[in-house]
């Protein structure tokens, strides 16, 4: 087990930020910690890294107790913090080299690692820039490079891709996958469910410091009652068809607004064909028609009664 957290309780005054949290990250996996703002992701990471005191619980990393002076453990950990932590007086290259050098003494090896990190976050054109001259997204990419350049066995990333544009984000996610394939275990937090779905092998959904559910994305989706969501663009839907839909036992919820019909089927029922036949029988002109499988947002919605996204 790379990370093992048991019964972790962390309070800030009266606020319980982590409520008896259990968490296991196994070697070789990309573990996603998914939760809305304030759910306790960052707090959990800070506890794991022994930066925060906590009221109760145990934390082991690489099967050893994590403490502030567990320097051998720290040697194997790379962290991308939620807050950008770079030095304004150092260039992009120097920043990465500096942080990498805290872990890697060998100069030649460091040079190569720094270059790989620069490639990963695609900052080649900006190596001589000072952080003040970087845009928000570029700065985030530098922050990532500083955290992972030494290519540790365990990488912990706290919402690393906030403010990063889609193309660079894809680059970074691919890079993370590569680091993972090269042997790194990754703990990844985000409130972007697409990201988590795209790269994580296992996901934990967190809300108000409590674990809602843990599993692969398929497992998570299988736990909820909703099935596919069907969207049909259709003008002037006759009332008898609406009535028909309302009484269809396979449809959990539906909504017709602005010429768009959204119907959610309960799990296991494939109602697209039925629905289209119903439309055809009334010779309705259909616009776009598409079907979506449930997302983690749906999972979150059903489990907590609120949206994951703001």
């Amino acid at each position, binding site marked *: 087990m790379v990370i093992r957290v048991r019964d972790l309780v962390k309070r800030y005054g009266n606020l319980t930020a982590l409520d008896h949290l259990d968490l296991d990250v196994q070697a070789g996996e990309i573990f996603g910690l998914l939760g809305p703002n304030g759910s306790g992701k960052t707090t959990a990471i800070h506890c794991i890294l022994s930066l925060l005191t906590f009221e109760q619980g145990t934390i082991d990393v690489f099967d050893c107790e994590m403490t502030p002076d567990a320097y051998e453990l720290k040697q194997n950990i790379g962290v991308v913090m939620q*807050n*950008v932590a770079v030095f304004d007086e150092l260039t992009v290259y120097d920043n990465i080299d500096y942080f990498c*050098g805290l872990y890697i003494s060998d100069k030649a090896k460091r040079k190569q690692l720094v270059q790989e990190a620069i490639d990963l976050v695609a900052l080649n054109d900006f190596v001589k820039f000072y952080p003040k001259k970087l845009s928000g997204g570029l700065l985030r990419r530098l922050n990532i490079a500083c955290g992972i350049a030494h290519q540790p066995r365990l990488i912990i990333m706290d919402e690393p891709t906030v403010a990063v544009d889609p193309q660079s984000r894809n680059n970074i996610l691919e890079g993370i996958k590569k680091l993972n394939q090269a042997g790194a275990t990754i703990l990844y937090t985000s409130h972007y469910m697409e990201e988590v779905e795209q790269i994580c092998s296992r996901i934990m959904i967190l809300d108000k410091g409590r674990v809602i559910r843990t599993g692969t994305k398929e497992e998570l989706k299988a736990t909820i009652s909703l099935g596919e969501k069907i969207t049909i663009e259709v003008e002037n839907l006759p009332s008898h068809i609406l009535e028909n839909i309302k009484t269809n036992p396979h449809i959990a919820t539906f909504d017709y607004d602005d010429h768009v019909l959204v119907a959610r089927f309960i799990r296991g029922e494939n109602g697209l064909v039925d629905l289209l036949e119903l439309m055809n029988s009334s010779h309705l002109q259909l616009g776009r028609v598409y079907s979506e499988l449930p997302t983690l947002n749906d999972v979150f919605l059903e489990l907590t009664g609120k949206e994951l996204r703001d």
Partner: protein
Amino acid sequence: MIAHILKYRLKCFLRDRQMVFWTLLFPLLLATLFNFAFANLGQIDQYVQAKIAVVDNLAYQQNLPFQSVIEFVSGTSEPLTTKLFDVTFTDAKSAQTLLLNKSIDGYIELNPKIQLVVYESGFKQTIIKGFLDDFVQTETVLTELIQNNPQSVDEDMIELAQVRRDYLADSSSNQANTNPAVIYFYSLIAMTALYGGFWGLRVVTELQADLSPQGARASIAPVHKLKRLIIEIVAALVVHFAIVLVVILYMFGVLHISFGSQWIYVILAAFAGSLMGVSFGACIAALVKKGEGMKIGVLISSTMIMSFLSGMMYHGIKYTVTQAIPALAWLNPANVLTDAFYALYYYDTYQRYFINLSILFAFSLIFCLLTYVVLRRQKYASI
């Protein structure tokens, strides 16, 4: 690893333009102002030894009291520097010539009243005149003394001359620094050294996870905290001491302030002061909780109070404190630092100076250890 961290921290600190600018600019500005203000005061060390001629005529030969006074203040029995006057005995003609080609500041001729002849009026001339007026004022008394008790003449003369000399040559018995303005520049160097506190503050801020994201990163790095702290303090000290050196060089090279043969001691004291300043700032930053603004506030106000109590703003305070509460004087690092400089100024020996320096190094050690003790408890209740 050590060289790596040192190299990049030096780079960071040197490029911290704002900090370098302010810690450098303010002392340079003050030094320039001081220099301007003390431009006239600077002449004191030249007049301390006025060159005079005494016309060796019959009237002089007959005025025994005056003769003994002149002999005393120009006496060969004492080292040259402690003499008030450098006296040449000559005839009236040559005295005039000497005065015209400015070899002397004035000459005294008795006819038989004592007369001072000067060519221009300046500080030295005022001193000579003051000396003569003083003599004339007491002449009556002296004459009586001579008539009643000729044996006591010498002693009384010596006493009289002694008082005058002490008054005039008060500045120092120490040959290197006869210029009283130097003491203000010493204070300024001490103040610049204390600015090191800001660097110490930065060091600690960037080492603590609850103070900065950089601190969080430092806390998760596999580098021992004590090692890390020492390297960072060294880097800050190097940069800060360089700034202090620039200030000293400016005083020396541009303002032509002479520290005499003591420049090496001045630099050593500046180093000890810089180390104390940096570690003091680090310690304050570590001990004071509640945000950066609070830390800066406490640092500035404590430095101000210490400087004030050490007489850097109003000189008299230093002696009041030293006399009223001696312990406070020794427990105030700023006072120990200024005292090291004053020791250079007032004393011939370096004993007091080195005692002060040892205390400064002890303070620095204590400040660093306190900082480490706080940093070592690396877990925080809230980040």
